[in-house]
């Protein structure tokens, strides 16, 4: 322990931590721009400077470790002046249009400028007009708003192991972007949007689908249905200043109705369906391997996360045969909405618009993939991020906080707790184990509260084992077999896990990968700013939602049973094959055209 003094107050702090961490833990506010929780500080922006007694110059608090007896001041004239100069310089190179900027309400640069009392920009620079890069389906880059804090670069390289964007050129000409400042679509970007999630300004944002959705809602000839991903309900409240982890499922449904959707459905429904299809696929692979002694691709990897699929296509094409052929729940929903549901209500699929609300930017990319039109039309038309839905609710003048609770519509509104937990890292695996164990043994998963604790939480790579005993007739071949499963979230962890398996040959049967740290609750489209504390709050909320459900195992969902009876007939059957499954091929890293 160290004893330090901050603004005259004596504070005890852990050895080795930075001034910033010590000050924040003790309740002092220090502004930061380039600092990004969980990554190595770069000390680039100097917005975080403080005075350290005895030191000739100001210290960047984010990368200066504390020493015993350090005397620190965070709020002197010298500190304020220095911070103001930093921000004034940034603003002088900034193409500001705050009134119309998407970040008008949550821009860290704007907030900092206000907090520092900047009223004019003393430096006059003529900035070259910057081109906005709209080359990819999910993300727009506006270099004119970039303050070169390089958080996006850090997250893309260190957390995601993609490295699609980095600093190009030098000095005044520096651009944080793809190689040679070329359009994002020409490089291997997986569209995860983690860059947009950490960007302090409007320099990287999702491509908006808001106008398209309004147009559909305003078109009386369109039947507009909406599906909401499990992770939305634990985060949407943050758009209205509710505490992270506040569950707003019922209010969300009310708001969607007020916005004018003809039917409000739940991606949870197809999450349950995914468990049936993907669980059956796993059991089929195991049977081929154990009984028929065939060469099958194991471990099976999950396929719900489109950023992960794109990552594998670029960086690990060798494991594509191992990835489940199941489409993601979003895409299963789209394909069923424009076939099964359209028939049921007598609406032509071309007159139906399917809108998704997703925590994810990559879903915007996914819905435009050529594989995703098995209904004969683009299965999902628009994808709104949680943030975009929040914006639409505000645009419509809906008093979200005071909305009553409502419930989703049949048939795609019925779901189990197993579907809710798709939002959390470890959740898809837990949901799969609940159902697979029940099918194979006829008994519930022997885990307290049905939770597989070793798979939960923010540890980067997690694993667990389940041994099947007293198996039922159909699955006797699994008697005594121990299934080994692993979970990785954040693509860096996924790539570490794949490398580990390839190098050591460690045996796993099923692996869950989610693109974003924390899983979908930490998605690139969630309300900013997602820290680990926020992730944990959302994760806890999702488990609470699960525990409150009547059914907590996907195979017990009565609407799913009905869907098989009326339409799909059997898991992995012909209709399923046509509508719910697909396959992927490797992508070249370097030869893409815009």
């Amino acid at each position, binding site marked *: 322990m160290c004893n330090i003094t901050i603004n005259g107050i004596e504070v005890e702090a852990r050895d080795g931590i930075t001034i910033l961490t010590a000050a924040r833990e003790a309740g002092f506010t220090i502004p930061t721009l380039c600092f990004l929780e969980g990554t190595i500080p770069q000390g680039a922006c100097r917005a975080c400077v403080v005075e350290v007694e005895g030191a000739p110059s100001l210290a960047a608090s984010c990368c200066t470790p504390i020493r015993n007896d350090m005397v620190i001041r965070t709020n002197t004239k010298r500190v304020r002046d220095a911070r103001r100069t930093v921000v004034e310089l940034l603003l002088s190179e900034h193409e500001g249009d705050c009134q119309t900027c998407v970040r008008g309400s949550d821009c860290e640069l704007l907030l900092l400028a206000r907090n520092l009392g900047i009223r004019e920009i003393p430096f006059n620079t003529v900035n070259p007009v910057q081109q906005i890069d709209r080359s990819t389906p999910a993300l727009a880059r506006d270099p004119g708003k970039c303050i070169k804090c390089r958080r996006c*670069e850090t997250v893309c*390289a260190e957390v995601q192991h*993609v*490295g*699609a*964007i*980095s*600093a*190009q*050129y*030098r*000095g005044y000409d520096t651009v944080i*972007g*793809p*190689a*040679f*400042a070329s359009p994002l679509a020409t*490089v*291997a970007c997986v569209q995860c949007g983690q860059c947009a999630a950490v960007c302090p300004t409007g320099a990287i944002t999702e491509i908006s689908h808001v106008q398209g959705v309004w147009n559909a809602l305003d078109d009386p000839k369109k039947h507009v249905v909406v599906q909401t991903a499990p992770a939305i309900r634990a985060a949407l409240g943050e758009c209205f200043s509710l505490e992270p982890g506040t569950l707003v499922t019922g209010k969300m449904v009310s708001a969607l109705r007020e916005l004018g959707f003809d039917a409000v459905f739940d991606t949870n429904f197809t999450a349950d369906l995914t468990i049936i299809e993907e669980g059956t696929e796993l059991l089929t692979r195991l049977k081929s391997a154990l009984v028929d002694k065939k060469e099958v691709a194991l471990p099976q990897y999950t396929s719900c996360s489109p950023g992960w699929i794109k990552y594998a296509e670029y960086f690990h094409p060798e494991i594509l045969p191992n990835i489940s052929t199941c489409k993601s729940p979003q895409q299963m929903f789209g394909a069923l909405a424009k076939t099964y549901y359209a028939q049921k209500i007598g609406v032509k699929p071309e007159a139906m618009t399917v809108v998704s609300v997703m925590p994810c930017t990559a879903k915007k990319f996914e819905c435009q993939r050529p594989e995703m039109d098995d209904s004969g039309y683009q299965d999902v038309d628009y994808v709104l991020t949680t943030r975009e839905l929040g914006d639409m609710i505000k645009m419509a003048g809906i008093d979200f906080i005071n909305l009553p609770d409502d419930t989703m519509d049949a048939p795609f509104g019925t779901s189990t707790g197993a579907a809710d937990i798709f939002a959390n890292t470890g959740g898809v695996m837990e949901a799969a184990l609940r159902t697979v164990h029940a099918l194979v043994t006829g008994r519930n998963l022997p885990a307290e509260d049905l939770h597989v604790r070793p798979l939960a939480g923010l540890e980067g790579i997690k694993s667990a084992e389940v041994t099947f005993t007293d198996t039922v007739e159909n699955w006797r071949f699994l008697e005594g077999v121990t299934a080994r499963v692993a979970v990785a979230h954040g693509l860096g962890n996924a790539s570490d896990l794949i490398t580990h398996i390839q190098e050591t040959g460690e045996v796993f049967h099923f692996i869950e990968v989610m693109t974003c740290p924390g899983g979908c609750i930490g998605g690139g489209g969630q309300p900013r700013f997602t820290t680990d504390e926020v992730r944990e709050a959302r994760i806890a909320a999702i488990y609470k939602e699960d525990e409150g459900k009547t059914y907590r195992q996907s195979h017990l969902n009565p609407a799913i049973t009905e869907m098989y009876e009326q339409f799909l007939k059997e898991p992995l059957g012909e209709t399923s094959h046509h509508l719910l499954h697909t396959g992927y091929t490797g992508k070249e*890293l*370097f030869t893409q055209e815009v």
Partner: protein
Amino acid sequence: MCTTQPVSARQPDLSESSLIPVLDEIIDSYCGTRGALIPVLQSVQNLLGFLPAPALQYVSRELNIPYSEVAGVVTFYSFFSTVPRGTYLVRVCLGTACYVRGGKEVLEALTKELGIRVGETSEDRLFSLEIGRCFGACGLAPVVMVNNTVHQRVKPAKIHELIEQYRSEGMQEREVQ
């Protein structure tokens, strides 16, 4: 600083099959470590005269460094070039002193005279045009460097004459070869 002498107008063989063994040899000689990026790029440029995209992509893959980072290094240092350079590298100083004393007009005149923009090479591969930031000859601003020769107090009106000299010199040398 431009440390490489522009290579002649000979077109290096850039097909993948001929590049790979050469690149492998260079990369191996630096043991494929991460810190090897800059020396590897220097060796490749010395060999080929510039850094073609396929070579950079190969280096990125082999050293396991994201392409954006490789490109970041290439674009950071002005001695790296991704386009073949002409016989004469013409660099116009746009440092403060030169800028104030007409560097921009000089650049405009050069752009017109050579028919190329900054960063480009003329079709006859005689000239490449670049800008620089202060060559340390501020007293003689505006300054233009052609390869290693410094031209001082350059006036836009004299650009044609200056370039013509190099043009005829270059053509003659080519004929000799």
